[in-house]
C-alpha cells in the first residue's frame, strides 16, 4: 500500500528535523560563552527592524518626517540597522576565527554569507528611500557606479518607487527566508566544536 505524499513529507521532515534537535533544551558546555550570543542578537535586531519597518510602511514618508512619533520610529529603525550590522559582523568574526565551516557545515557558512550580502543590498535600498538630501546624494552617486558596471540597465537607484518596492516587498522576504534556512542548518548540524577539541582538524585532516 502506497502512503500519501503528505505522510511522506511528514516522515521525511521528522527524520531530517526531529523536534528535540530543532528546539533543544540543552547545549554543549562550550556554548556557554558570550561570543555565541551574537547570532541571536542579530535576529533580535532583525525582528525589531521588521516591526518598526511595518509601522513606517503603513504610515509613509510624510509621517516620519513631520511627526514626533514618526521621528522616533524612524530612529528605532535606523539604530537597529546599526545594531543589526554590528552584531552580525561580530558574529561573523567569531565564526571565522573558530572556522565554523568545519564538520560539513559549509551550507551553514554559505547561507550566512548570503544573509550578509542580502543585508547590504537591503540596507542600500533603505538608504535610497529615506526621502531626504542624504538619499538623493546616495542615489545619484550609486546611479553613476551602477551605470559604469552595466547593471544600471536593470536597477535604477534614482527610481524611488523601485527602491521602495525592493526594500519593503522583496528583499526582507528573501533575507528572512535565508535567515530561516541558516537557523535550521545550525539546528540540524549543531554548534561547531572548538578547534582544540577537533582532533581531525588539528592533525590537518579536513
Amino acid at each position, binding site marked *: 500500500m502506497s502512503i500519501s505524499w503528505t505522510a511522506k513529507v511528514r516522515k521525511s521532515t521528522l527524520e531530517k528535523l526531529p523536534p528535540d534537535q530543532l528546539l533543544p533544551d540543552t547545549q*554543549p*558546555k562550550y556554548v556557554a560563552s558570550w*561570543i555565541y550570543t*551574537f547570532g541571536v542578537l542579530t535576529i533580535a535586531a532583525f525582528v525589531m527592524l521588521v516591526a518598526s519597518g511595518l509601522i513606517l510602511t503603513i504610515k509613509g514618508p510624510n509621517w516620519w518626517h513631520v511627526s514626533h512619533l514618526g521621528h522616533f520610529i524612524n530612529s528605532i529603525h535606523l539604530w537597529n540597522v546599526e545594531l543589526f550590522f554590528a552584531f552580525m*559582523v561580530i558574529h561573523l568574526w*567569531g565564526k571565522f576565527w573558530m572556522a565554523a565551516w568545519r564538520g560539513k557545515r559549509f551550507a551553514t557558512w554559505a547561507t550566512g554569507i548570503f544573509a550578509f550580502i542580502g543585508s547590504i543590498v537591503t540596507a542600500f535600498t533603505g538608504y535610497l528611500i529615506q526621502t531626504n538630501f542624504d538619499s538623493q546624494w546616495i542615489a545619484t552617486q550609486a546611479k553613476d557606479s551602477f551605470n559604469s558596471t552595466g547593471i544600471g540597465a536593470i536597477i535604477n537607484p534614482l527610481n524611488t518607487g523601485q527602491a521602495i518596492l525592493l526594500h519593503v516587498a522583496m528583499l526582507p522576504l528573501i533575507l528572512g527566508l535565508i535567515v530561516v534556512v541558516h537557523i535550521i542548518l545550525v539546528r540540524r548540524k549543531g554548534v561547531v566544536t572548538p578547534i582544540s577539541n577537533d582532533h581531525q582538524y588539528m592533525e590537518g585532516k579536513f
Partner: protein
Amino acid sequence: MFLAVLNLNHPAHFLNWGPLSISIPNLVIILVMVFLFILALMIPFPNHSQENKEGEK
C-alpha cells in the same frame, strides 16, 4: 545634554592615510565592535562554572 556636548550638526571629520579615508564616526563604531568582540571572549558567561561542576550540560 549628550547632543549638546557632541555637536553632530555638521559633516563628519575624516582621517586620511594615503588612499585610505575613514570618518571618525565609522572609526568609533569599528573600535566599539572590536572592543565588544574582545569582551565577549574575555568575560565569563554567567553560571558557566556551576554547569561545569554539574557536568550535565
